[in-house]
């Protein structure tokens, strides 16, 4: 187990390095100059040159890269060019906001999808089963940017029940959480249903049922465990992605999350901020997947990690 974790961490570091290197080069190759952007179209070439020097952007790219790797090794990610403050500050503020939203959306998705999926699996081919499967398909089909806007139209504009954008109070979280949760509900419901169906009709469950165990007990003791593996995998992947920032949902609801920060940073060509955001997003994605893999052992002791 320890050896496994060590290997996975080393591998994670490799992927991180790869992503960071690609981003480092890519963001600098792309047309656009942070200094020119800051000064706007009225600035002269000399003004721009001066600012470039000031920001340390005049060095050659390999030189900047070496300096960058050195800084990263010391966990120093530099100052944002655009915000003129340490990038770690901005990134950590935005992560908090994103994590709140991701947590709420995931909770909502779990609370809704598990009962729905289980009910559907227990009565396959019933009207309820069909309704659930169509509903979950709708959840996956409606694009989040449109769903968000429709929720705003109905609940914020027409009914005036909820605020439409911003992040000041808990009420602000409701609409974006629903928007983020919808596709999750779609996927998880289907997964719970099909996972449960797979095991429900396997021999040992039939035996358990034949022995006269109540449905509830069968579900709790046997079925859930087997169903959980794919579900946990998907939850992990989705959570990793939610933490990566749901750019669209954050944009629609003006939620100050990490996704919007990354996009703004890219548009501003704010190199240090882009790098730090990517590092965080990638790291959280990898870390959560690692946790998922480790959790397999606890869900199903037959699994051995190697």
């Amino acid at each position, binding site marked *: 187990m320890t050896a496994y974790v060590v290997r996975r961490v080393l591998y994670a570091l*490799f*992927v991180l390095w*790869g*992503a960071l290197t*690609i*981003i480092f080069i*890519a*963001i600098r*190759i*792309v*047309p*656009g100059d942070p200094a020119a952007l800051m000064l706007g179209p009225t600035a002269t070439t000399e003004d721009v040159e001066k600012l470039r020097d000031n920001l340390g952007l005049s060095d050659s790219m390999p030189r900047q890269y070496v300096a960058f790797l050195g800084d990263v090794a010391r966990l120093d990610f530099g100052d944002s060019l655009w915000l003129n403050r340490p990038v770690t500050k901005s990134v950590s503020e935005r992560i908090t906001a994103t994590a709140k939203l991701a947590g709420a959306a995931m909770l909502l998705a779990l609370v809704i999808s598990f009962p729905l999926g289980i009910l559907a699996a227990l009565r396959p*081919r019933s009207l309820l089963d069909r309704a659930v499967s*169509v509903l979950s*398909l*709708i959840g*996956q*089909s*409606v*694009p*989040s*940017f*449109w769903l968000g*806007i*429709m929720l*705003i*139209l109905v609940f914020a*504009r027409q009914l005036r029940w909820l605020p439409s954008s911003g992040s000041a109070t808990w009420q602000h979280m409701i609409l974006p959480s629903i928007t*983020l949760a919808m*596709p*999750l509900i*779609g*996927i998880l419901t*289907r*997964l719970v249903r*099909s996972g449960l*169906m*797979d095991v429900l009709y396997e021999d040992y469950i039939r035996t358990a049922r034949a022995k006269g165990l109540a449905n509830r007990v069968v579900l709790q003791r046997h079925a859930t465990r087997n169903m959980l*593996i*794919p579900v946990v995998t*998907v939850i992990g992947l*989705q959570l990793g*992605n*939610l933490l*990566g*920032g*749901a*750019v*669209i*949902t954050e944009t*629609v609801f003006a939620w100050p999350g990490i*996704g919007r920060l*990354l*996009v703004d940073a*890219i548009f501003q060509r704010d190199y240090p901020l*882009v790098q730090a955001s*990517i590092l965080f*997003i*990638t790291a959280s*994605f990898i870390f959560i997947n690692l946790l998922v893999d480790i959790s397999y052992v606890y869900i199903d002791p037959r699994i051995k990690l190697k």
Partner: protein
Amino acid sequence: MTASASTMQNAGPPAKLESEAPARSSRRGLDRKRLFLWSLPILFFIGAAIIGPYIFPYDSLIVRTGDRLEPPGAVLRDGSRAWLGTDKVGRDILAQILEGARISLIVGGATIVLAGSIGLTFGVIAGYRGGFLDSLLMRLADIQLAFPSILLAIMIAAVLGPSVTNVILTLSLTRWVIFARVSRAATLAAKEREYVLAARATGVPPPLMLIRHIIPATIPPLLVIATVEVGLVIIAEASLSFLGLGVPAGQPSWGQMVAIGRDNLNTAWWMATMPGAALSLVVLAIGLFGDQVRDELDPRARKR
């Protein structure tokens, strides 16, 4: 980009597919009539995209500022009726949606073909050869997955300029991984089958081997993935356009229409509502069809 919405929706199926191993293609033949019935809504949209623009022609250069922001069903100054309303410069929303349908379908179709081909090639090679090449390709896939696709979109648009082709390129580059993973898994499974092992033992050359035995085995799971993916790609295109990173200005895209309509929610709700509804219906229709394809190709699902 729509990190949550699109990249990951596909996380479900592949995980499941890999665990279930590639579907042994059903020997019973497909239930063509049922599939055809379920494909009708999609055919309707394809038909609308092809024929629609002839009935409701759209020209971005014909603007009527006197007829701007008219609600659905309004009669315009020239006596024509705007069934779904008009936009901020007086152009018909219905005509724009039909024009946008073309973009969606072109991008959706082309991306699946391109991403599918790249994924199939890489996946089969990785799975068949194994070893270092396999690790290399799969690590590349991991890095690609961790890399935000929105950044890729910005880069491609910035370097090559915005165009439909570049949107297809961007989306293919972010989508090949899923196809690669699935075809790799299918290849690994196929490699171990008796008839393949036997063919190998008799010295059938690898290229022939791939074409005859391996690639056919990867097709059914790839088709299942493709039906799921095409809807996601259409959403992804709309999402890119929503963020202003999609098709160029002047070519109506559903995502772009929703983005523009969003600023007019107070005064013209139809601008954002109508194209989004069209988009959702198309993706839903594809999803329903995809379910049927899966039922047909996956015997285990059929049993239920």
